[in-house]
């Protein structure tokens, strides 16, 4: 199916071209995305403190279980394993909420899509935005926890917005791709659920980077660490942890020499080695936007 393009006519006015990913003005696009995201966020809290508690409960419970298992099993070698684990779980919760949450988003909003003309991209972006609101709230929990653990505020915290921004871009790319693909291929949902699970174990959330550094053998002639860090989520996770926890001053609760692991750049050896994970993030954005934009005119018909 081709969408014919034609211009304005001096007598007849402007053309009606049908729906697209980004039609109309930017202000409307922004208002729409923000309003949908805020409504979703509001609905999840049901306007109550208890709602906030439930929002926190999920990552906290997951963290509690993992922390108990891994600390008791002496698997966590990093000295502030708990802080590392909690911050990792919270960030990863954002990523799954944004991507797995957007798989069904266009289909679930069928009533909008079939009844109203608006830039289609507002839907997946609003899902990412809602997840971002939740992340902001969960950061309070992390802040309380790591301050209790004795981590001092550090200059490297200034890196955090940038790191999170890159993760948001990756999540956005994936959410555009997944939500548009799901309209045509309904098995995207179980597939992505599995991918999310695998990615959890592959993203240095449970396993500290030191464990990988200890592994000196080569896999297919490449150090294991380098293979591991092809996954952009793993890179971002490690860099975020390095920036958040860093080498900290010893305190009553913190043993000497505690830190959040090394800088990813240092671990990989240079920017050139980061080309693949950076490339994956860029590719997800380009591919996601291209695919969504291509599908947008016919999404309403294919639902």
């Amino acid at each position, binding site marked *: *199916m*081709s*969408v*014919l393009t*034609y211009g*304005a*006519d001096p007598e*007849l*006015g*402007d*053309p*009606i*071209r*049908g*729906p697209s990913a980004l*039609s109309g003005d930017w*202000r*409307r696009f922004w*208002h*729409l995305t923000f*309003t*949908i995201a805020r*409504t979703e966020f*509001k*609905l999840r809290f049901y306007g109550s403190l208890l709602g906030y508690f439930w929002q926190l409960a999920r990552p906290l419970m997951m963290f509690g279980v993992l922390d108990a298992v891994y600390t008791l099993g002496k698997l966590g070698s990093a000295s502030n394993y708990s802080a590392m684990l909690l911050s990792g779980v919270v960030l990863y919760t954002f990523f799954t909420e944004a991507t797995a949450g957007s798989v069904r988003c266009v289909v679930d909003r069928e*009533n*909008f*899509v*079939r*009844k*109203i*003309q*608006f830039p289609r991209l507002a839907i997946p972006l609003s899902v990412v935005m809602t997840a971002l609101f939740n992340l902001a709230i969960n950061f309070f929990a992390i802040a309380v926890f790591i301050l209790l653990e004795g981590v001092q505020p550090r200059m490297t915290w200034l890196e955090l917005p940038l790191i999170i921004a890159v993760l948001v871009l990756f999540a956005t790319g994936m959410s555009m791709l997944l939500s548009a693909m799901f309209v*045509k*291929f*309904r*098995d*995207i949902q179980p*597939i992505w659920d599995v991918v999310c699970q695998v990615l959890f174990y592959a993203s240095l959330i449970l396993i500290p980077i030191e464990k990988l550094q200890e592994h000196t053998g080569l896999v297919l002639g490449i150090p294991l660490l380098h293979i591991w860090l092809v996954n952009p989520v793993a890179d971002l996770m490690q860099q975020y942890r390095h920036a958040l926890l860093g080498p900290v001053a010893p305190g009553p609760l913190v043993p000497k020499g505690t830190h959040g692991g090394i800088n990813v750049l240092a671990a990989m050896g240079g920017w050139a080695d980061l080309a693949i994970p950076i490339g994956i993030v860029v590719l997800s954005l380009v591919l996601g936007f291209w695919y969504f934009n291509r599908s947008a*005119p*016919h999404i*309403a*018909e294919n639902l």
Partner: protein
Amino acid sequence: MHTLKERALHPLRRGGHHSFKALEDVSFEVREGEFYGIVGRNGSGKSTLLKCLAGIYSADRGRIWITGRMSPFIELGVGFNPDLAARDNVVLNGIMLGLSPREARARYEHVIEFAELEDFQELKLKNYSSGMHVRLAFSVAIQVDADVLLIDEVLAVGDASFQQKCFDVFNRLRDEGKTIILVTHDMGSVMRFCHRGLLLEHGDVVFEGDPDEIANRYLEINFNRDAPAAQAVGSQWSGSGTARITDAWCETPDGAQPSMFRQGDPLRFCVRVEFLETVEDPALSVAFQNEEKVTVLVANTAAEIERSGRFAAGEEAVFSIDFENLMAPGRYSVHARLSRLGHGLELLDQSAGEVSLIVKGTASQGGVVDLPVRSTIDRAPAGDRRGLEVSS
């Protein structure tokens, strides 16, 4: 529905694609300030056309132009969330329809007032009745500033007083020079509001132009598919068996049997009877029922021909009743009973509703029948006005 698995396992097989042309060769122009109706039966393509106009579907071929701002919605209450209260929904819906959050909030009071829902502002929408829901949705929708409004079947909702309010709004919008495109089944609203219209059938334009003519053609299309059934008569054998109705039909006085009868013309209903035994003084009574099963007309040949005489076995006769057709446009079924006046009334045979006829017309005022009326207004002489003078 497709899956990636299917794609991977059968890369060459193309999924079961049926192409269906919802619209073809549809071309029309709506002028500024016009109230334009798009009419058609279910599946005629009218909603697809509206979605193309609204920019929700994109046409595979053809072009559409617009001057001015188009309202971006075609249905009421899009994006309403049942778990939110009226205020949040009004703002959300307003933003979906293209207002900025500030504008949407500023118009909230007005919306609630128009919807007459001041007492229910804090109630979650899921607890609203469907009528309240529609009132709220309509009130938001008319707050949107647009030069061209697209409206899909809204007139069928709400109670009578709110419908009147909607009509008032339509009239106001029309007077303000807004262009309105209305998609509907309801011929009444087309004839009442529209300047011009478009009649679609199977994706083709049947007629474009005068609303009265559209209403006529619409009735024609709507009832024609049942026309063959209307002609057939299969008499149910429920009488005494001494006579049989073998045929029944409607015709004009000159014997023609059109598919539709014009209101106001003379009409004749005929029944052919075959007598199996000797029958004395049979009479035919007929009843015309409209679609709401209201009996509009009952007539009996015995009123004029009390003694119709003696009919021998094997004889055939045609009984007919002539009348001026003042029935309102629509479809009627005719019940005919052949009986004999004797000791009481002996039913010989009947044909229950197997004949139907369609009446078309444009002058209907909404009654079951349109009796001839004459209107006069007598002005009282100037000196006779009492109670109006104000002494100064």
